[in-house]
């Protein structure tokens, strides 16, 4: 395209000045970009932007601009702006535009379009810089509420964070304002697997779908990334807000097609409606965000409305977060020891060290409540390291055959310097590594990334224990209470090591025997192998499934063969 080639002739300085005009900074969306990247971003943007020279001829235009004024036909080289907009604008609008162009100053002109799907637009004419100026056509249906050009999100044409801040601070009204927050589900995955070009395209398509659901007077804004917000300022009933939110969810859930690829995502939505209890708009925004978080917690692709309980939960969590950060300094933590008894000798054989937190503000807080939060806010390592040292300090004076058990979370074990820390600790306190038993959850065990560190610990003499096995396997928990008639054990259950495999199968057989549930094997190729397995240690094995699936014919043949 001729315009395309022309744009490359623009100097960096010239282009940067356009961008200075554009949003006040030589960057887009806060990211510093090279000249080519800026050009590409502007080209891909759904904004209708063109650059004109001193003769008012177009020297560069975004694809959206070309589509708008020229119905997909190419612009002839250096078309005059007024010629390009001839068919788009009404005669009156053309006159207004002509007189605005004559002025060298920034102008924003409302124009009426002949195109029935757009109707009203604002035409923005920038200052003249190096004999060029920016022209942007902003459809009013999207941007009724956009006051300035620097309130436009270049990718989607929606309002940006600047507009969000302006609207929330100036138009907020306790009896009229509602906020709807929308977040795309697993958007990051799209960006990571299909790339940013597809990701950006998806954001544009989603925005287009959303925009069609709102009214021109609603403030529709992309805050950044895949986060959208609608600010509604005219006292809309909650039932209508919910139905709008539901339509966002449905719109996002429909299939997208980008670069011949089918893409499916979803959207989670949170709603908050103001009332006389609100003192500040920020509170309403935070509440909408809490409702959005609730939607995500409940499994995404849904809407939630803010309620007091969400606030209470968030406040409690916040109090725990703050408390955790101060707890160590305030000496609120202590380490307790649970005795371990050897059933054969009936003697004390060691202790499990457990962490106790008595917060000044919250009272006694259960580890199940504060440990996950400590993990989230990155305090787990500090608190964990402190308590480990406390425990070891105590335990070193105990008999040398005592075991000190200590629970370590997945996050701790994944920490790069955890092993180094532990080694340092046992050396510092001259404590035998083999006397320390590291208790891991099943979740940790199932995390492939943790395996290397677990093996390193074991190789250095530390003992590894599994806490609460089969806790995660709901099915096993329910084995004794539900009418299960048979269990199938997989041959590939425990890798290729025969001894380990045998042991694993044996333990499942034991569970089956205790509960009176027959066990069959999977993945055995013939009867001979099965009998071998049965003879060698698994006399209770009741039958097997082979590895090879059969066709209908083969299956039928097998049936008739057996019946002979």
């Amino acid at each position: 395209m001729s315009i395309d080639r022309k744009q490359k002739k623009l100097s960096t300085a010239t282009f940067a000045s356009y961008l200075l005009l554009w949003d006040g900074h030589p960057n887009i969306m806060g990211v510093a970009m090279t000249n080519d990247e800026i050009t590409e971003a502007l080209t891909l943007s759904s904004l209708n932007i063109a650059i004109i020279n001193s003769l008012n001829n177009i020297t560069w235009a975004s694809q959206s601009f070309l589509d708008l004024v020229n119905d997909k036909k190419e612009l002839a080289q250096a078309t005059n702006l007024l010629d390009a907009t001839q068919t788009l604008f009404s005669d009156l609008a053309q006159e207004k535009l002509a007189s605005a162009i004559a002025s060298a100053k920034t102008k924003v002109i409302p124009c009426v379009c002949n195109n029935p799907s757009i109707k009203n637009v604002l035409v923005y004419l920038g200052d003249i810089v190096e004999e060029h100026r920016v022209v942007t056509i902003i459809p009013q249906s999207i941007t009724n509420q956009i006051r300035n050009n620097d309130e436009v999100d270049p990718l989607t044409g929606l309002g940006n964070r600047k507009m969000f801040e302006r609207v929330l601070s100036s138009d907020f009204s306790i009896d009229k304002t509602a906020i709807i927050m929308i977040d795309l589900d697993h958007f990051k995955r799209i960006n990571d697997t299909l790339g940013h070009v597809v990701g950006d395209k998806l954001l544009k398509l989603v925005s287009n779908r959303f925009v069609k659901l709102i009214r021109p007077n609603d403030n529709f804004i992309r805050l950044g990334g895949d986060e959208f917000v609608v600010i509604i300022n005219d006292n809309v009933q909650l039932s209508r807000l919910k139905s709008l939110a539901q339509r966002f969810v449905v719109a996002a859930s429909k299939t997208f097609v980008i670069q011949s690829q089918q893409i499916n995502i979803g959207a989670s939505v949170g709603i908050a409606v103001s009332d006389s209890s609100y003192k500040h708009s920020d509170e309403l925004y935070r509440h909408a965000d809490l409702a959005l978080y609730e939607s995500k917690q409940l499994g995404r692709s849904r809407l939630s409305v803010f309620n007091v309980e969400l606030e209470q939960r968030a406040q409690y969590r916040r109090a725990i977060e703050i408390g955790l950060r101060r707890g160590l300094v305030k000496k609120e933590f202590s380490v307790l020891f649970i005795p371990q008894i050897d059933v054969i000798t009936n003697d004390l054989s060691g202790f499990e060290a457990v962490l106790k937190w008595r917060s000044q503000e919250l009272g006694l807080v259960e580890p199940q409540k504060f440990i996950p939060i400590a993990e989230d806010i990155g305090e787990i390592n500090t608190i964990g390291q402190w308590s480990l040292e406390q425990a070891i300090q105590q335990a070193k004076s105990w008999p040398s055959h005592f075991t000190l058990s200590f629970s370590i979370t997945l996050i701790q074990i994944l920490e790069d310097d955890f092993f180094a820390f532990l080694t340092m600790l046992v050396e510092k306190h001259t404590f035998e590594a083999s006397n320390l038993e590291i208790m891991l959850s099943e979740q940790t065990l199932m995390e492939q990334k943790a395996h290397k560190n677990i093996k390193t610990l074991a190789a250095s003499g530390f003992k590894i224990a599994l806490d609460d096995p089969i806790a995660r396997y709901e099915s096993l928990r329910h084995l004794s209470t539900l009418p299960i008639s048979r269990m199938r054990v997989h041959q590939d259950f425990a890798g290729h090591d025969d001894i380990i495999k045998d042991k694993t199968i044996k333990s499942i057989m034991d569970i089956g025997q205790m509960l009176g549930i027959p066990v069959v094997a999977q993945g055995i190729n013939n009867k001979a192998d099965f009998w071998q397995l049965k003879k060698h240690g698994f006399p209770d094995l009741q039958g097997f499934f082979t590895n090879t699936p059969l066709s209908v014919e083969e299956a039928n043949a097998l049936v008739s063969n057996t019946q002979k």
Partner: protein
Amino acid sequence: MNETTSNTRLIYVSANCIDSELLDKEIDAILSVAREHNKKNNITGALLFNSGYFAQVLEGPEEAVEMLFERIQEDERHEGCVVLSCEEISKYSFSEWSMAYEGGDSEAKTHFSHLIKHSKSTGEVLSANEVFSVLFEHINQ
């Protein structure tokens, strides 16, 4: 902007939402809008209808097909749109047609009804290849 854009073939099925007494009129309207739009945008394709379901094949420049599919999904005359396939193609299969139509009492419609019935009874997703060949064979014969 000026590179030769690649061409896409998109096949989808969806459930009809049009009342039976309005059916003929609406289908005519769909076809006339589709044909005009498609001609302008170098899109070809075929629509199959059996009173309960639509199946459509769209072929054209990637971007144009994407935009058209966005519009189609907004249309309230159908729902439950399922994309059966979407792939780059080197040549058009319905090049003579801005939007061919198989409905009424056509053989294609009967064939399509069988496919739908099979898909419903087995729970298997309708095969894109089968839908495509029903349309291709009946329209290009």
